[in-house]
């Protein structure tokens, strides 16, 4: 059955191969998973620089008390768009980029299942980005209600908010198509002999992520559509004067929003689960429990949304339920951390850049996990809700978590993608510079939050000055460090470096290392057999 499918895909692949366009049209019309993966990753990096520039503008304003650089309205647009761009423009597309490049190569498939839809899911993203960034330049300015877009504030805003709503719709459609593609590819196109429980953990992580995406992106679409009709068509979903409830939006939004944060982190877990065994030269410890932990985290993610809203005034029973459910997430997450540590235990460890970023991930993500546990404790959260402590927490899990894992993944696979080894010295400089700068930027935010500095304010009282200065210096340092990464990647693409062998890593065991480096345009036209 599956071999018939492969033959079909094989035939089409050859067809396209003979007369596919060159130059710009190659990228516009491509249906090749590697081309599309590359476009996703570059799109994500550009958005990362745009969002990062916004972050540095925010940190400049917060360097000292008083208003110096931007006005409060624009400041609010910056925090809003920084969040939306980093989540929907940088982290999610980066994860899809990894999926496009790696999933077919890791399961021994010739391409993604729906090659044309793959092209369409990518090309939806640039218009969404134009809407988001363009909203800053329309009358009334960009969306300024935070990335969470809570009404009634978001109902007050100008047309920048409508552009944001449409951008969210477009990116949601893109994510849903990407997820359908990934699920179909994984379930139908694995090489003969590769059972689900033999599949690389990266593919498992993405399979579960894709189901989460399909489950929650429509919920977000529903929330922002209700917002749109409240804004323009006289409905009152979120307006108490018309029989609605502003808090309803928060419930619907976070029912999407909490699974969303796992959508952002599970692919990162997948990458780390590939990198750590490779550089420990030892199989992943507890493969089955890793899969079950991923599934448990995904299921629990649907039961904890209201922990983002502990101060809205919930009934006591609600507070207790959501606190207990949230704390429970620590159990499968703990299992994952213990398994990674056990994988390294009695291994034969080396410290190339992918491993360094994986270790940085492990250390700092766990720290972010602990602050998450602190925030789950309702009475403590009452103090910390909407403070810089929360900002510190989610940057530890999103930047030192997802982003570090993606850096790890890029250094790990770039020899396969470009055929050139990255420069280890430059990559290590990138790692240490990012690691230290990250902590200088974000660790002080814990203190600011504990001491009582609210988030999303353009100006603050003088007791918070010292830590804000330190944090701003760290943020600029971190931002500039990413130029080192750009240099390291461009150097590989230019072919300036040692030529990569088919299997550059001694401990690599997955199927992509059986292919030559760089990986040919079409791979696994004949499926490999996995024993």
């Amino acid at each position, binding site marked *: 059955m599956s071999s018939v499918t492969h033959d079909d895909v094989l035939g089409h692949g050859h067809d396209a191969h003979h007369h596919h366009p060159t130059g710009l049209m190659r990228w516009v019309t491509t249906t090749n998973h590697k081309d599309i993966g590359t476009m996703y990753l570059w799109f994500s990096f550009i958005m990362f620089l745009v969002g990062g520039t916004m972050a540095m503008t925010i940190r400049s304003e917060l360097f000292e008390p008083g208003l110096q650089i931007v006005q409060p309205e624009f400041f609010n647009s910056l925090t809003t768009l920084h969040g939306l761009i980093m989540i929907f423009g940088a982290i999610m597309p980066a994860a899809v980029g990894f999926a496009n490049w790696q999933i077919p190569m890791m399961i021994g498939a010739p391409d993604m299942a729906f090659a044309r839809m793959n092209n369409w899911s990518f090309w939806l993203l640039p218009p969404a980005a134009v809407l988001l960034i363009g909203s800053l330049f329309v009358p009334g300015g960009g969306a300024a209600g935070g990335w969470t877009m809570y009404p009634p504030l978001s109902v007050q805003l100008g047309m920048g908010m409508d552009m944001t709503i449409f951008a969210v719709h477009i990116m949601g459609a893109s994510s849903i198509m990407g997820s359908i593609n990934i699920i179909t590819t994984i379930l139908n196109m694995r090489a003969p002999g590769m059972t689900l429980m033999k599949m690389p953990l990266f593919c498992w992580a993405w399979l579960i992520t894709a189901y989460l995406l399909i489950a929650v992106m429509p919920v977000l679409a529903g929330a922002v559509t209700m917002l749109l009709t409240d804004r323009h068509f006289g409905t009152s979903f979120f307006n108490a004067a018309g029989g609605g409830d502003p808090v309803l939006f928060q419930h619907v939004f976070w029912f999407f929003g909490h699974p969303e944060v796992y959508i952002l982190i599970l692919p990162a877990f997948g990458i780390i689960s590939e990198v750590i065994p490779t550089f420990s030269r030892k199989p992943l410890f507890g493969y089955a429990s890793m899969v079950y932990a991923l599934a448990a985290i995904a299921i629990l993610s649907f039961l904890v949304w209201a922990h983002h809203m502990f101060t809205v005034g919930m009934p006591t029973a609600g507070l207790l339920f959501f606190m207990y459910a949230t704390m429970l997430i620590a159990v499968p997450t703990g299992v994952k951390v213990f398994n990674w540590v056990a994988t390294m235990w009695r291994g034969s460890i080396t410290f190339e850049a992918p491993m360094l970023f994986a270790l940085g991930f492990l250390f700092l993500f766990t720290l972010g996990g602990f602050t998450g546990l602190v925030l789950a404790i309702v009475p403590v959260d009452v103090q910390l809700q909407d403070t810089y402590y929360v900002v510190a927490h989610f940057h530890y899990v999103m930047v030192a978590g997802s982003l570090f894992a993606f850096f790890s993944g890029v250094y790990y696979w770039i020899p396969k993608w470009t055929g050139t080894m990255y420069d280890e010295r430059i990559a290590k400089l990138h790692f240490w510079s990012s690691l230290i700068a990250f902590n200088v930027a974000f660790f002080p935010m814990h203190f600011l939050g504990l001491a009582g500095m609210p988030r999303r304010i353009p*100006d603050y009282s003088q007791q918070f000055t010292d830590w804000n200065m330190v944090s701003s210096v760290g943020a600029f340092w971190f931002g500039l460090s990413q130029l080192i990464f750009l240099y390291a990647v461009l150097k590989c693409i230019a072919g300036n470096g040692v030529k990569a062998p088919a299997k550059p890593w001694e401990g690599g065991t997955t199927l992509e290392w059986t292919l030559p480096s760089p990986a040919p345009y079409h791979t696994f036209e004949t499926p490999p057999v996995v024993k």
Partner: protein
Amino acid sequence: MIRNCRGSAPPRFIGRALAALGALPAAALAAPAWNFQTPVTPIAREQFDLHLYIFWICVVIFIGVFGVLFYSLLKHRKSVGHQAAQFHENTTVEVVWTVIPFLILVFMAYPASKTILALKDTSAPDMTIKVTGYQWKWNYDYIEDGFGFYSTLATPFDQIENRAPKDENYLLEVDHPLVVPVDTKVRVLITAGDVIHSWWVPAFGVKQDAIPGFVRDTWFKADKVGTYRGQCAELCGKDHGFMPVVVEVKSKDDYAKWSAEQKKALAAAADDPHKLWDQGALVARGEKVFNANCAACHQASGTGNAAAKIPALVGDAVVLGPAKAQIDIVLNGRNGMPSWKHLPDTDIAAAITYTRNSWGNKAGEGLVQPAAVEAERK
């Protein structure tokens, strides 16, 4: 550490950035901000202790797990010639490290649940204050005492724009702070007039979102006299960063004095029921009162609504007859008509005078003074 921040040209900005980097350890030592603010309510104290309890458990686990990791990174390196073992599962170990974290969580959840029950218990308050959030100020209503006021940022714009040195409580000072007595359980009813705000006083351990159209409640019982400062904690638009919360906790005697002054000021601002009005002024005021309160049934034209058995006031015997009877009906109600005695004497007198001189009515007793209403109340 108070800094005077004037406009900063770019080179100076970079200079300051470098100075800040150089001063890292110094800043760490001098900074007062490491932990929660000093708590002054029982709930805030429980939160303070609970946070440290959870924090230290996390520190111990962190050191344990990463102690093992660092031992492994040190001893199990390829560069020291360590050969990789090939084990990849151990059911016993995996069950143990699933069950133990679960048990630790139970020990965290128990004290946290107790505090949740305490902080949600708003029963039996000694006094109640209604807090309303607006873009961008707070309104405080002392429900039992009947007075209230707005509380807005007092920091001058010159300081925000760096044209004047910033004073000690920059951005955390208001024109009229909320004033409460010490050792008193204050129930706070919270709502908002436009968008969502959040009323937060860190030293009290109180943070409650203010949701337009809904009333939520919380409580605090401060046990130390002083001034406590917080801020709006939910993004509410342009000036979200500029709507502080300031609460002054006074001794019970001082509070009683302050409260008496407020009531006196309220009374002074109210109408004197013994003032003698001339007819024109009273009719003009009465029209407003009538339209706001009476016109819903009796109609602005005074024609009533026969279908709903609401009598017309035009040519009505009571309206044209002795004032005493009409005052009695307005104060106490009759048949379907409710009592209006919650309105001030002057308003009732004005509304009655208006009905006696409008729509062609020309009552013999055309002018009803507030004193007459006051007399009827007794």
